[in-house]
């Protein structure tokens, strides 16, 4: 039913759906969203300019702090970009350790998201169980790297810590348990009415729109598009490891949940395979201090989707230009499209569906003097 006139509803910067500030202006006709205007830039931190002020080694720690949840994805992308500038060959063992950490990070990020999705749908029991398991992954990562969140395991030219055989066994044992748990949670998600009613048919993103609006990561794959940087442009050792790119034809929030759950199982397999095939040898090579003029781009499949870093060197110890494109920026246009036609009550669910990470994304702030 249409009411003939629309009402503008401001949503944010502080809002109930997310812990991060972002502003959306919804135009609603009755209960239906007809127009969405996002405004980004609330957490612009000047990261790119800061990159130009520090040396390549120091910037590693800045890159790590772009995102709290995918800190390893950012340092992997950073090291990949800087190693491309030099260029520098990383020892195979280091490559595998980076990959294992990256997949552990995907596990913890996806279980965080599925937990939040369950919470947004009003299903807090599952949220608790998922986060309990996630905590064990965090403990594993802490044991390997020395910190829960900012792992600081990557360095230019390799990794800083090795994985011992006891740690490898512990990870493998936990992967079996985790996989069994995820399969059980999936059964719950597939049958639980509380969850299905909130997610099935909600937030439809058609495959055509997903491509034309440049969606990335699980959002894109949940619209049935087979696209994953790990498979399309293999970095680290993904070219040597067999794995499936998970897709789903549902195009809704439910599909995004299932894609993430299945990706967790896939990640557990990747970790087990990588641990069984861990090459011997050195874990790092020393990098040069200064880098000759060059340009380089790094692409990584972060838990939220494709992450791109770009760097330009000028012969000094500091980069001349550094650019970061976080996956949430890629997904923002698609989520605005998805929200059109949705009920107001579904807004948090749909927004959370892309697994947004706004502070990673804000690279610019627009100040309109006249407004």
């Amino acid at each position: 039913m249409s009411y003939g006139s629309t009402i503008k509803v401001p949503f944010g910067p502080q809002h109930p759906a997310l812990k991060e500030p972002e502003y959306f202006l919804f135009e609603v006709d009755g209960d239906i969203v007809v127009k969405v205007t996002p405004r980004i830039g609330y957490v612009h931190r000047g990261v790119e300019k800061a990159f130009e002020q520090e040396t390549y080694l120091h910037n590693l720690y800045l890159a790590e702090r772009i995102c709290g949840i995918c800190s390893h994805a950012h340092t992997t992308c950073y090291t990949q970009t800087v190693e491309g500038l030099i260029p520098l060959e990383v020892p195979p063992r280091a490559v595998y350790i980076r990959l294992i950490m990256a997949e552990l990070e995907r596990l913890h990020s996806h279980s965080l998201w599925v937990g939040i999705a369950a919470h947004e749908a009003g299903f807090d029991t599952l949220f608790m169980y998922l986060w309990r398991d996630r905590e064990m992954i965090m403990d594993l990562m802490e044991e390997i790297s020395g910190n829960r969140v900012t792992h600081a395991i990557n360095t230019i030219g390799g990794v800083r810590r090795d994985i011992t055989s006891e740690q490898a066994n512990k990870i493998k044992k936990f992967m079996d348990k985790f996989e069994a748990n995820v399969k059980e949670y999936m059964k719950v998600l597939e049958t639980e009415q509380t969850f299905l009613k909130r997610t099935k048919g909600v937030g439809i993103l058609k495959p055509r729109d997903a491509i034309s609006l440049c969606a990335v990561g699980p959002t894109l794959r949940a619209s049935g598009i087979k696209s994953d940087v790990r498979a399309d442009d293999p970095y680290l050792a993904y070219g040597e490891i067999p794995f499936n790119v998970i897709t789903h034809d549902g195009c809704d929030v439910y599909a995004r949940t299932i894609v993430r759950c299945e990706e967790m199982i896939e990640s557990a397999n990747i970790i087990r395979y990588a641990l069984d095939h861990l090459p011997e040898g050195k874990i790092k090579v020393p990098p040069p201090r200064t880098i000759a003029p060059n340009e380089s781009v790094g692409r990584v499949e972060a838990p939220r989707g494709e992450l791109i870093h770009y760097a330009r060197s000028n012969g000094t110890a500091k980069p001349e230009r550094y650019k970061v494109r976080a996956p949430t920026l890629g997904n923002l246009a698609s989520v605005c499209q998805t929200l059109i036609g949705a009920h107001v009550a579904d807004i948090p669910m749909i927004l959370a569906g892309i697994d947004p990470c706004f502070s990673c994304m804000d690279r610019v702030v627009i100040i309109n003097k006249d407004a």
Partner: protein
Amino acid sequence: MSLFREAARQILRKPATVKYPFEPGIVPPGLRGRPVWDMEKCILCVLCQNACPTAAIKMIPKGPDAGIEYHLDRCIFCAECADACPRKAITITTNFELADTSRSTMVQHYKKPQQAQTQAAKT
């Protein structure tokens, strides 16, 4: 249904959470906590200051205060300083309970022993 099974299983297990701070937190052996300096070994070579990404280390090269000034409030516990030190004078401890209410108490001054002694003799 399977959630009931999980709930029943969890009843028999011990809680997944730890009652920190009433119980000690779980600290894995390799945790990167606060770095400490052994000034017997330090040769004031400035490498740790250069390696530190957050300028948490200030080396005072000479004078009665010669040594290392460490700013806990700036430290991000990355352990780059310990990796850079040629004399292994820096140890990364697993001490993570470092919060304080005042910034002034978060600066620690490690003095070179000889200077500390001569200064003690003077006063």
